[in-house]
């Protein structure tokens, strides 16, 4: 028997894979070959070390840690499936509502559309549903002011009719895209998110008492300094502004209710005051962003399990306020434990 063959037998013997005959053959060779015998002793010593590796246990129950998430309906649990797929699953009811609203709006808006032949129909349908959803709950005059505050240059297109106003304002070019042509997609997203803020407030049912994490893949919310008094002039500017003032009060009642989970479901991000907070499933804070100033819309998104992208969009309607004046993109790298402005 050759030494190379015996080495293979030695390895297999450690895994109890040798037949009695093979074992005898190996032992006979080892008795006659000191080199192989030494090799076998070393291999056996390593094997014993591996067998005595310490048993490890999680510092706390993993199941207990994920139980809150498991109480969610199974379909809405964070899933390791691709991010894009999960975005489509998010709160399907809201998509159905949006679809229905879009159809109604299109019916209302046909005359206006006829006057605007160059409108991009797909874009109108996508955004108009959000405008209509707001119009269901928000007085028309306030709505106008909201549009003006978010996109001031669109004010020329604003009409008294809610539905028409929605269409007209959507047809106008986006001012921010002009200011920063390098990031057109971002601004389009921002615009959608601005609209989504209002529609979420108007249509979402109250969050359950236990504050269970919502399965949101991507969220936007408004953050305002906690010191903004409710009775300031800003409150009068429109629904978006008044929500800015109310936001801190709501947060006190239901802290951390807007949780955004990482793709693997083990981290959550939320906006607290003027910061983005990342926490683990036990609620332990993992990272806290810098504290921004001023009144902003915040868009938060997980790029991967270790990276959060948040974008601060200044609210143009708030004049003379210190802080964010241009849209700012920040990336939180959890691995490095730091954030960076893009």
């Amino acid at each position, binding site marked *: 028997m050759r030494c190379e063959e015996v080495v*293979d037998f030695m*390895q*297999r013997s*450690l*895994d109890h*894979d040798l037949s009695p005959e093979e074992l005898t053959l190996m032992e006979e060779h080892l008795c006659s070959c000191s080199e192989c015998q030494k090799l076998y002793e*070393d*291999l056996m010593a*390593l*094997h014993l*070390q*591996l*067998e005595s*590796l310490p*048993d*490890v*246990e*999680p*510092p706390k*129950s*993993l*199941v207990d*840690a*994920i*139980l809150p*998430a*498991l109480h969610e309906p*199974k379909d809405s*649990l*964070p*899933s*390791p499936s691709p991010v894009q797929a999960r975005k489509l699953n998010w709160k399907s009811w809201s998509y159905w509502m949006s679809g229905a609203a879009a159809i109604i709006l299109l019916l209302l808006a046909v005359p206006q559309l006829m006057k605007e032949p160059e409108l991009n129909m797909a874009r109108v349908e996508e955004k108009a549903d959000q405008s209509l959803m707001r119009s269901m709950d928000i007085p028309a005059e306030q709505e106008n002011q909201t549009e003006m505050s978010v996109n001031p240059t669109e004010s020329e297109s604003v009409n008294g009719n809610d539905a028409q106003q929605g269409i007209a304002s959507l047809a106008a070019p986006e001012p921010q895209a002009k200011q920063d042509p390098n990031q057109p997609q971002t601004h389009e997203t921002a615009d959608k998110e601005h609209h989504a803020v209002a529609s979420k407030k108007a249509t979402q049912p109250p969050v359950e008492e236990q504050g269970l994490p919502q399965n949101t893949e991507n969220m936007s919310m408004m953050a305002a300094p906690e010191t903004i008094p409710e009775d300031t002039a800003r409150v009068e500017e429109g629904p978006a502004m008044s929500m800015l003032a109310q936001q801190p009060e709501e947060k006190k009642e239901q802290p951390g209710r807007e949780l955004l989970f990482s793709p*693997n*479901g*083990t*981290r959550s991000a939320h906006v607290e005051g003027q910061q983005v907070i990342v926490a*683990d*499933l036990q609620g332990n804070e993992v990272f806290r962003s810098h504290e921004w100033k001023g009144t902003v819309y915040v868009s938060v998104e997980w790029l*991967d*399990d*270790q990276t959060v992208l948040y974008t601060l969009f200044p609210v143009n309607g708030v004049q003379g306020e210190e802080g964010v004046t241009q849209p700012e993109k920040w990336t939180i790298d959890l*691995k490095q434990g730091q954030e960076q402005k893009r």
Partner: protein
Amino acid sequence: MTEADLIRAAQAGDRDALIQLLRNIEKSVYKTAYYILKNEQDAMDAAQEALIKVYNKIDTFQEKAKFSTWVQRIVTNICIDHCRKRKETMSIDEHELPLQDQTDVEEEVQMTYMAKDIREAINLLPEQHRTVVVMRYIQDYSYNEISEALELPLNTVKSHLFRARQQLQKLLQEYQKGGVQV
């Protein structure tokens, strides 16, 4: 209830049975994650991710496979994903092992790194070899079970395991040659 009973109940929609199943496997899931990923926090994350996946995918488990190997496949795949993501972001200056699964890997290991104990040596193995070692020694799996869990041919399992042991020996010997006792 036996494991098989719990699985059937869980697949029939019994949440308590499913949670009990997760409790039964959480330690073994964590152990695998810990030895593949090398640190507690990453292991916690990966193990939780694996448990959530088991929870979501229990309907797809078929009894022809062994439940524990099915679970181990889930957790090892998640760990390997973590390792790959980590490699992608890893700087060359960081003191990690920039190893590829290639033929002369032992020499590369031997020349570049020294391990002062067996755990450190395991951490220096290429991920595929490390995973097989973890299945063999941490989960106490047979070749067939490793093959099933990792979806690797039997011969590949043996090859990885044998090569891993050789590499471990060399890593530990190198350290001893350096004049420091393990």
